[in-house]
Structures are given as C-alpha cells and as structure tokens.
C-alpha cells in the first residue's frame, strides 16, 4: 500500500517536473491573440465592422466584445478562418455591416478634382497623393478599396473601379467535373 502510494507519487513528481521543464524549455512564443486575428483581417481599414480599423476590431474580437462576422471585405473566407482560429461557430456575414463586394480601387477623376485634400485626410492608408489646390491621385497598388474617401469629396469625383482579372492575377480553377455533382463540394 505504502509502496504503491510512494511509487505513484514519485512518478507524479517526476512527470510533473519533466512537463514543467518542457514547458519552460520548449515554450513557443505565440503571437498574442489580437495579432493572430489581425493577421486574418484583410486590412482594408474601412471601418465597416463599426470599429475604427482592423486592429481595433481584432482587439474587440479577442475580448469577446464583437462577433466574427462583421467584416465584409474579409468575406466568408475570413469568417471561416476566424471561426477556425477561435473555435467559434461559423456565421454568415452580418447584413447590417455590409455585403461582400469584389475588390475595387478608388479612382479620382482628375478633371473634376479641386484639390481640397479632404480625401487625403480620409484615406486610412495614405494611398492618395496630392496637396492643397493640387490635383490628387490614387496609387492603385496601395488602395485597399475601403471607400472612405468617397463621402468627403465635395465634388464627387472619386469612383470605385472593380479590379478585373488579368493574366497576372488569373488563377487556375478548382477542377470540377459536371458528371459528379457530389464531388464538387468538399
């Protein structure tokens, strides 16, 4: 009896020590949760989630204050990834926050632009170049398509242009066989 107890407790101590050692020695420096969530969010910084940017939304999700389905640019795929990361149930995109749209960039009609700099102040990622009374232009590569520059423009010269597929952005499609309706899913 006594031996058994001794042996068991000895085993427990040894294993516990080993585990403790391993925990210290092989510790994985994990990203804090907010960073991980932020890495999934599309960084459009559009605020459609009702937070002032992707990071604040990520923080809110991490704190459990926000749902995972509030980011329209991230779309369904984004929600799925968040659901995976957080072990939460997948939810369809919440309609009150917007709808998923194809990726677009803003374009300024240079003939109409009056150089008021209002859009520069609105753009969250500094994708607009210009100065007071000078024509403004948008660097398409840096524009996230957040549409925040549209409302401030006093002469409505900014429009969103959907990005079309080019030879460079074209992707091979998932092989699909019409004969097998059941196999297309998955």
């Amino acid at each position, binding site marked *: 009896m006594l031996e058994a107890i001794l042996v068991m407790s000895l085993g427990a101590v040894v294993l516990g020590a080993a585990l403790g050692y391993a925990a210290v020695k092989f510790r994985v420096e994990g990203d804090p949760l907010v960073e991980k969530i932020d890495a999934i969010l599309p960084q459009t910084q559009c605020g459609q989630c009702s937070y002032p*940017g992707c990071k604040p939304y990520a923080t809110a999700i991490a704190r459990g204050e926000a749902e995972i389905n509030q980011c329209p640019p991230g779309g369904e795929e984004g929600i799925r990834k968040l659901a995976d990361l957080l072990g939460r149930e997948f939810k369809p995109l919440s309609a009150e926050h917007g709808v998923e749209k194809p990726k677009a960039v803003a374009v300024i009609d240079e003939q109409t632009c009056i150089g*008021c700099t209002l859009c520069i102040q609105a753009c969250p990622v500094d994708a607009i*170049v*210009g100065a007071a009374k*000078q024509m403004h232009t948008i660097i398409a590569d*840096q524009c996230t398509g957040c549409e925040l520059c549209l409302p401030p423009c006093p002469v409505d010269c900014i429009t969103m242009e959907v990005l079309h597929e080019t*030879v460079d952005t074209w*992707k*091979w499609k998932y092989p699909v066989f019409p004969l097998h309706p059941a196999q297309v899913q998955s």
Partner: protein
Amino acid sequence: MIRQPQQQLFRFNGGVTPEYHKDQSTRVPIGVPPAPTELVIPLHQSIGGTPRPIVSVGERVLCGQRIGEADGDVSAAVHASTSGTVVAIEMRQLPHPSGLSSLCVVLQADGHNDWIACSAFDYEQATAQEIRDYLRDSGVVGLGGAVFPSHLKLNAGHQIGIDTLIINGAECEPYITCDDMLMRERATEIVRGVALMRRVLNAKAVCIGIEDNKPQAIAAMQTAVSESKEDFAVTTVPTRYPAGGAKQLIRVITGIEVPHGRRSVEYGVQCFNVATALAIYQAIALGRPLISRIVTVAGNVSNARNFEVLIGTLMKDIVALCDPLADTDRVIMGGPMMGVELASQDVPVVKATNCILLGSQKIFPPAPPEMPCIRCGECAIACPADLQPLELYWFARAKLFGKAQEYHLFDCIECGCCSYVCPSNIPLVDYYRFAKSEIWAREKEKALADEARERFEFRQFRDEREEHEKVARLAARAAAAAEAKAQSAADLAAASAGGDSGGDDATKALIAAALERARQQGGEIAPKNTGHVSAEQLAEIAQIESRRAEIREQAKPQLPPDS
C-alpha cells in the same frame, strides 16, 4: 577535359514512357510560312516584368527593331518580327490558358521585311553587365518553354566559371519535334552558339544531351561538333519522360540534383535549350534579336510539320498550312503532358510556343470521369520529383494549402507523370496548378494586407504625433500669450512710466512672429505624401496641375475658399 560520349549517366526516379508520335512531324524539313500581313506581338513574353512599348501607333518599324523595352532586369525586350506600321497598341487575347488579354503591339506588315542594321556584338571586349544588357535587349529567352530571360542565366557564372554547360536537346514531350528538327538542320549554328555561351560562362565542359530516339539529330550534332573542333560531348540519354526537364537532364548527365528554390549554377551547372543556343548565336554573332522560333504543328492534322514562325503570327494561319482535320476540337500549346489548352487559335505565336497541338476526341479522348484515389501509389512511383502526389492531391483537393506546402507542393514540376499513370484518372496536375496559383494569390494578398497595415499604423502614429504637436503648440502659444500679456502689462507700466518706444518694439516682434508662422505654414503646403511616386507620375501630376490651374482661374468665384 573532354567528356566521352559514353560517359557514365545517372538516372532520376520515376518518369514514364508515353507514346511519342514524333515521326509525324519529322518527315519534312522545317518550313517557312508565307509572310503574314498582320502580326500581334504581345509585350509580355518572358518571365518577369512586362516590357514597356517604345513605339507609337502609326510609326513605321523595321524588322528587328525593338518595340518593347525590358522593364527592369528580370525581363526581356520584344522586337518587331518584320517591317511595317504599328496599327495599334491594344489588349489582345494571349496564348494563355485563361484566354485573357494583355497589351500587344499590332503590326501591319509592309511585305519588304527591311531589317535594322545588324552588326555582331563584340562580347570579348564587353563587360559582364554589357553582355547582360545586350542579351536582354535582344530579347533572348529560354525557348524550351519556360521563357526565362537568358541573360540572367548567362551572367551567373561569368566570374566564377562553371563546371558543366548542358545543352538540352532531349525534347522528351510527345509530338514535339522542333528541337529535333532544329538540330538536324542547323547543327552548325547551334554549336557556334554553344561555343559562345561556353566562353561567356567560362565553362569547363560542355555536354549536349539528346534522347536516344533522335538518332539523326545526334548524328548531325556530332558532325557539327567535330567539324567545329570543339570538345563538346554529345551525350545520348535514355528516352524517358521527363528527361528533358532541366533538372532531370542535369541529374542524368552530372548526377547532381538541384533542389527546388536553388539555381543550378550554385552546383556548377547551367542548362540551356538548343534553340536558345541558336538564338544566342544569332544575337551575338549576327546581331539579330529574337524574332522567330521553330514551332511544331502536330496532332490532328494531316500534314504535321515544323515551321520557322515569326513571333506574333496568328496560330490559325500556321495551323491552316497543315490541313487540320475536320473533327479538331481543341488547341493545345505545348505537348500533351505539360501543354495548356487554349481558348482559341486566334492568338499569336509567342516565344514560349514550341508546339501547336491540335486535339480531337479520337486522339485525346476525354478522360474518363475522375474516380476516388485508391492510394495505389502509382503516382508516387512515377513522380520524377520524388513527391507523394496522392497526398498532395488530397491536400489540394481539401484546400489544405499549408499541408500541401509541407508535402513540397512547390517541388512539383507539373510534368504530368502522375496524372498519366493514375488508374483513377484523376487530373492530379490540375489540382496542383490550382493549389499553387491559390497559394501565390494568397501570399500576394497577404503582402498587400501587411503593407496596408503598416501604412495604417504609420498614419495613426503620425496623426497622434501631429495631435501632440498641436496640443504642445497651443499650449506654447497660450503660454506665450500669457507671457506677452504679462510683458505688455509690464511694458505698459514701463511705457506709462517711460514713454512709447517699448510698445513699438513689442508690436514689431509680434508681427515678425506672425510672419514667421505664416512662412512656416506656407512651407507646409508643399505636396504631402509624395515620397513613393515615380518620376512619371510626378510629371503627370505637374502636367495635369497646370491644366487645372487654368480651370481653377475660370471657376474661381464659385469655389469655396480652400483651407
């Protein structure tokens, strides 16, 4: 060191031996199609940046004149394939599986075929950089199908020198015979090109690898080599697909396996296609840029043969010369194993077009429907990259891209051996292509998102800083005002005590401060956020700016006052 033809060869794992059908198109010599009247020359024809058009609509160009200038170092120029007039620079459909369009220079041929003045390039006197630029501007790219700009590969070994220069004449894909015919008919020029390359690369040994199913090409090359008195080895390699893959050929000839993501030059080997050797010869010795290539037309045609085709000739014009059979329902660029199906024949021949393969239900019956993978492992045995295609298939299908990468998805050379042997008829390569392009797209997206995050964070930081500065400024101003008040009160007291002169000074100081402030603010109106704008964009902005200045003059009364 002279390598004997009977040197020891190595083998790569896997591979298959499909039916080759090569004799179809080797019966007649390389033909020259009638001069086309219209040429559509895509600007983007090689790996890397898209060349910028340097001609304008309406301009007359000469044959060999550069019409697209290489964009950066990883890019290659494009040239007019004949003389004529530029009638358009517009989006035209490309020979690409997507069927999408891209910028092309459309040339109306004048039928004279006037060349630019060509002169040999004195590479012996040139620096490495000059050779590199020259080849880039001659538009020489790998003609085996990968269209990797050759100058990048030729430069690589310039200083160090390499052990073996391998010339790839293996041509392992079924149906394709363009290299075979080229070696039979132009062996001398190829050998001269190889000699040039060898000198540029400073290679110790040269090995021309040809599959043993091309005896005539081997004989021709051997004769050319012995006539040229060079010590090149013409190595006969066993016929097994994909022995013509650069990595596989390097393995067979030298025993070296070049891992994915490494360049063969790191292992002292460099590999070029025979057609590239010819292109280099023409560029350096004759001063002629790359404007044509040999194209095999085979498959569902009654007269399969090879043509020397000007880049930009429409495929349908070439196909028409070979009498396609009525039941043709597909056009494939490349061979049956690695080729891509094109949406139409109405696309130009480009530098990558080694073969135009016509298909019909009869020669390429539609694959029976895909059955589940039974994990038989045939694909793993056939895979020349020693991958586990079945696992890759599983992960690609389930879109587990991370796992697929762990199983070395990007080592896959898309040779098609696995799909070829799969008893369940799974189009495995399609899944890998899908997974690869999906992963690339995601990585690109990720990079953009990261950049956006950075810019957003920087902006926030700047806003905050500006906020702080503003608060500080306000505070400072308030303090100054208080002080000034106290001062002026004191001054006033002093003035009341001792006359008006002090008050005058104070006013002057205040005016000076105001001016200073105004000057500072004026300075701040300089364009913001212009650091990352290219020179052209700036020029454009300036141009538009001047135009708009006039408009603003006219519209002035209605405008709200600017900040």
